[in-house]
């Protein structure tokens, strides 16, 4: 069982009305893989991510998590197993950092107040924000918000973490602290599917990079090959441009 890939995406199709945004995507992820998705605006990266935890429904193909098709899983159960980090954080505005992290364990996993609080403080400590436990989102910087967002997802003990452009809404000087946390996670063996323009992260942590354009995979492979020796001129140009814009943040 554990030899199976954790995630298998097979010939995935997704339409909004008449517009097909994903036109047959297939790939696999083993445990502890870090899959980085890159591609221009409108290429379908975020949609692909949202198909995995069914924040959006798809029309064709199949996605399996641990061998079970996600469409056959209870949707709440699926999301319990898959954590997600959003571009604009989406921290619950009326809850403190600690309470943000506690909400899922309390209401979904049924943990007690004390258990949830203890876990929340551990996760805040892991992302270096123990001191901000009682701050409200509006009192945190963007980088701090995103680290709380990551801690919130981690507190559910997910099998897989989805990152939807986690640094795109951040000021340049705040990107580093978030990328650092993500690299620690990757090193610790978390399975991660990451949409990002951070080429520094991709080089350092990715097992594979996937280049998506207009709903199709253009190229897919380990970072060394895609950076040094891509098959397609388009891949080379795109990665080169990203590296120029987003590569040297630290």
């Amino acid at each position: 069982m554990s030899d199976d890939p954790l995630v298998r995406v097979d010939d995935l199709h997704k339409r909004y009305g008449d517009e097909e945004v994903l036109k047959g995507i297939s790939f696999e992820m083993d445990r502890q893989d870090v899959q980085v998705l890159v591609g221009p605006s409108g290429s379908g990266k975020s949609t692909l991510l949202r198909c995995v935890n069914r924040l959006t429904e798809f029309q064709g193909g199949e996605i399996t998590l641990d061998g079970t098709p996600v469409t056959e899983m209870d949707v709440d159960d699926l999301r319990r197993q898959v954590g997600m980090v959003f571009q604009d954080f989406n921290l619950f505005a009326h809850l403190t950092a600690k309470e943000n992290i506690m909400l899922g364990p309390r209401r979904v996993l049924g943990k007690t107040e004390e258990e949830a609080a203890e876990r929340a403080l551990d996760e805040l400590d892991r992302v270096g924000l123990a001191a901000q436990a009682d701050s409200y989102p509006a009192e945190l910087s963007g980088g701090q918000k995103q680290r709380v967002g990551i801690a919130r997802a981690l507190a559910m003990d997910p099998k897989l973490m989805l990152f939807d452009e986690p640094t795109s809404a951040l000021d340049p000087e705040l990107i580093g602290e978030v990328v650092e946390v993500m690299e620690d996670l990757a090193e610790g063996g978390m399975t991660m599917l990451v949409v990002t323009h951070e080429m520094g992260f991709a080089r350092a942590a990715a097992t594979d990079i996937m280049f998506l354009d207009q709903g199709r995979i253009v190229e897919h492979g380990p970072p060394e090959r895609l950076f040094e020796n891509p098959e397609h001129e388009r891949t080379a140009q795109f990665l080169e441009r990203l590296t120029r814009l987003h590569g040297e943040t630290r």
Partner: protein
Amino acid sequence: MSAGEADGDADADAGGGVAPDARTAGPRRSRAGTLKYVAGAVLWGWVLLRWGNDWLGGVFVPRGQAFVPPATVAGLGDAIPVLAGVANGLAFAVHYLPNLMNAMWLTVVLTVVSITLGFPLAVALAAARSYGHYTGWAALGFVELFRGTPLLAQLFVLYYGLPWLPAFFRNLPFVGEGIVPAQAVWVAVVGFTLNSAAYQGEYIRGAIDSVDPGQLEAGRAVGLSKLGSVRYVVLPQALRYAIPGWTNELVYLIKYSSLAAFITVPELLYRAQAFASETYRYTELFVLAGVLYLGLVVTASSLMGYVEGRVAIPGLGNAEGR
């Protein structure tokens, strides 16, 4: 800002899993919209015909008489027994509607005259509140007084509490003769004008405050006086922003004009109540009156929605709204 907005991604719609599907809402709404316009056109066509008939001394049928005799409608019930109850109610409506329509005319006049007279007063109050010092305090007192006490109490003070006011109107030439209404109507107009000026003034003030202060500064910078900047730069923007709030006030006034019945103004509610106590058919008459008020309210808000669309400044969202 939604997730996809930053990079103009097609992924922007990705929240579709949790949001209701917006796509199906479009055509349905427009179909309901068409229905509303057809119903509105039929209603108003009939209302205007009715008013026209009675004003011109009964060109089609005698004044106050139905176009279709109530007996005919009741006869419908005899023909189709299942519908007897409905036909009976309809026949009743057909009998009383012509009279209620004339009362509704007074409701419309009360509302339109009061809100129109209240408007300049409201602009002055709003300007005083936003820009004045002592006048600002005076305006605040006026607004708080009229918004903090029941409208019914205001009408009673004016009509029963200050006997010289109705007496003043009664002594004016022509009042209560021919088409000029009696003094109670004039007192009601005074009450509604003052009350609606207070509310309209607050909506306009909110809108003035929502105009970027830089606009006033820029007006001063091109050499306009403060008054000129307010008049030519701030107000043209603010009055547009004030439309949704102002529509609320119009709707409010249509409904609350019914309170004039308590100071003997023979408007829609007054007449419905009078017929009801004659016939004891309270349900039918109050439902009829309610439907007519509802028709006025829906018409007014649709009209104002249209006006709002027409005067909208391209590219400028409606900042305030309500």
